[in-house]
């Protein structure tokens, strides 16, 4: 008998490459979930890794940093927060904004 596979529809689960069961230090939601404002995880609610190695939902850390009282410091370690990624945070934000409407199925 010879078996020829014509078609293979697989299923895979994605996760952020973060330690298991860890949560965003600001909204307390798991990284794999969304910030409290978003509906869809992943592209639309990405994570942001700081130079201090603390990471948050991007939306969470942005709104934290916008507050006067935060003094632009990481809420976990109180060091000045700087994004580790090459992408400028503002750019990433803009990208999500434009992506949102067309990808929503409903």
């Amino acid at each position, binding site marked *: 008998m010879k*078996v020829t596979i*014509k078609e293979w*529809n*697989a*299923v*895979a689960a*994605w996760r952020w490459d973060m330690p298991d069961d860890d949560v965003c230090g600001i909204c307390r939601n798991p990284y794999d979930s969304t910030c409290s404002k978003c509906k*869809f995880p992943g592209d639309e609610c990405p994570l942001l890794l700081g130079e201090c190695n603390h990471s948050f939902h991007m939306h969470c850390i942005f709104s934290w940093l916008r507050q006067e009282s935060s003094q632009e410091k990481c809420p976990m370690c109180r060091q000045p927060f700087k994004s580790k990624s090459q992408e400028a945070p503002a750019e990433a934000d803009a990208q999500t904004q434009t992506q949102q409407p067309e*990808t929503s199925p*409903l």
Partner: protein
Amino acid sequence: MDHATLVFASVFPVPSLSHTTPTPVATPDLGHTAPGSSFGGPFIGNAGGAQHRAVKRTQAWSTATRFLSLPNNPGSGTRRSQRSADVEGALYYLLVGEGKSEEGEKGLLEWYTNEARLHFASFVKPALKELWEKEVELRTAWDVLDETQRTLEQVQNFYLQPFNDHILPFLHQDATNKTIRASQLSQTADIELMDAASWKFERHIHAVFAHCLPPKRFSKTLSYILYDAGCRLFRFYVRQDGVQPSTTPESTREVRDRMTALLSGLERVGLGGNNAQRAFAHAMNQLLETFIASHYLKVDWFSKRSIVPDLRVWVKDGFCPLVELAMECLRCDASDVQPTELKQWQEMALARLGRGRVANLFDFVIHWDRSLGAILDLKDYLKLDGAKQYLTSNFSQQISRRLLHPGATTTYILNVYISIIRAFHKLDPKGVLLERVARPIRRYLKEREDTARIIISSLLTDPDDEVGNTKFASSGELSYEIAMEMKKPFANREEADEEFNWNDLNWQPLPNDASPDYKKSKVEDVIHFLLTIWDKEDFINELKNILGDHLLRCQDLEYEKEIRLLELIKVRLGDEKLQACEVMLRDVLESKRINGTIHATGDVLTPEDQGQQPETPAGPGPRQPRPHRPTSSVPSHLTPSTPILKPPEGPTLNAQILSSFFWPILRDEEFRVPAQIEALQKEYESRFERIKGMRKLRWMNALGDSTIILEFEDRTEEFEHLTPWQVSVAYAFQPQPGEERAAGGKGKKGEGITRNVEQLEEMLQMDEGLVHQALAYWVGKSVLRAVSPDTYTVIERLDSSTKDSDAAAAAQELAEVQAAQTTTVKSQADLLNEKKDVYTSFIVGMLTNQGNLPVMRILMMMRMLVQGGFPFGAEELRGLLGDMEGDGKVVSLGADVWGIRK
């Protein structure tokens, strides 16, 4: 003694004044006339002698009573003709003259009345007694009554004639004389007096008549003939008395005349009184009942209209005229027969009809909407006082008896509930009744664990789907009625949003003053009722599990029904809790796009790179199409020398990428997939991670599906929608490197590679259960057959193994059952089982450190402290502790407290 008196007395003995002697035949009573007293003329008043008056009165009495006495034979007519002067005088004397009865004396009128009574007792009563002695049979009822009436009328005339001819004229004359000197007014008064005498006499006779008949029997018989007449007049074919109506049409005129003649006749002889009226009322009652049960008032299943108007017309034009006619004949006082108003009769009839309909309401609901006519009948009935209460309590009993029991499938209960919603919406658009009767159904459905699944799966099924149609049996898992609801356009989206508040646990039907349209939008909404059976959160959890499973199996890559369902649920329940469902749906829709992007990044995901793929225990990847083994012994026309399908270009790997956090816990058995797939997965993974930074993929090989082509020595077959483990197992039945020559030996024709379960488990690192399932599937498809227990071989040639078709059929059945039990989502029990070891050691540790603990405390600690939480309840925990007790680890100390076994 006066001679004349003596002579008179000797010939006509003076009657005793006791009135027990009917005629003057007794011995003369001389007691009143003392010897030697003077005897005056008959009409001379003598102040000197009361004794004289007595004698005179006795004489006159004798004359009068002799004249008036009744002959023995009532039939013997008018024997008595002319009054002689004597008689004339005597009557005058006794009735209006000086001999009129005074204090203590008996009057002639009374005597005559008594005479009639005695006569009746002697000569008439015995015959009537005989007639009424026994229960009157239905078929003789008319005759018995007719004869009774005739007899009584005859004797009544017989008694009345002397009274009218010989007594009344004197009274009348007297009255007229008086009026000469008196006013108009007093004349009337005297004539009334005269009539009163006549009336009194008749009343006495009537009392005698009535007294001689057994009242209950008479009433029953009369009632019967009235009922009979009614049935004949209205042509009722099914009667309460069981009488078969004659097949030849009767003249209603005749029936009516006979009835009126009899009733009038009975009334004339005084039998139209209370007794007759009761009989009449009873008959009318039965008649109404019979009409309502008759074919005239059967539910209108065809034109689906209410028959209440027919009922009203009949009451007005048929029933009431009959009642009036009968009442007139019996000279009933209108107030004696209740009710007298047309409207009252109509309401009474409607109440009867309504109760009859209520008794069958469950059946009408089941046959909605063919039963629309019956529901419309009930709608009229509900306007009556107390009707709503009666309907709800009675129907609730029917529901608990016929619907809410373990024998009814959930699908059936749901279907009936939907019919109830629809029928009751017609019945009572305000929804008050529905709310009342549906409460126990909703509670019951909530308790059944398959309710939500059936509702959601049905909403996701196209009712027009021909393949699906067989699934809509009431014993099945899908409800056609629910599926049909999805086809309806969404109604009043904004309105539904405004109106409905999920969090309102005390949902109430709309107020009575709401406008009809306002109410309609909501009450008619079957889906609304179905989705609100549960608390919102419970329902959405259930929805998440079912939708997840459904999305992974879905064949329609546009996901139209799923999108629509979610939209519909959002309209009704609001979208704040639906994030998980929306993410899942978005995942499957997005996956198409991601697949496109991944494939576009290079044409690498088709197996050009097969050469470099690692050898896996699952066997080598497909190589260049293998040259067919020489098959010299097989005639070439039987074996296709080349595969019928042109060699495929290799598989394409498509993936559904799930945001696992939002999906229910999915099955994740691990095993090795064919090497070429493994290679494709690796490539896919690396490209995905390149595109979507910081993210990693985990393949869930227990999910997904595949299509393969199997080429045998004698045939080529294609299989679609296989599970990955089915493909992996089939794949493992290909020759391994070096194996081909050995297996392809010329010894056995039609036999291919043979493997046993243990080998397969080893090669595929697959759970034994899955291996068995896959093997059963392939045996069912006549691809494999068992050569010994747990050992299977490929059927390379079908003809050599036809004898195994039974085994294949059995295996196919088994495989189907297993497939039906397979879901993509893990059950709670599976989860508990999987983590049992973790939980067990946690419990042992805790009880060792902290001593004995109650279950609730253990539960709380586990929920807080166990890695990944403890998503179970106290019941599951008790089950787990029970298992541990069985293993000798813990011991129950009673009162829900557990400790370490020492």
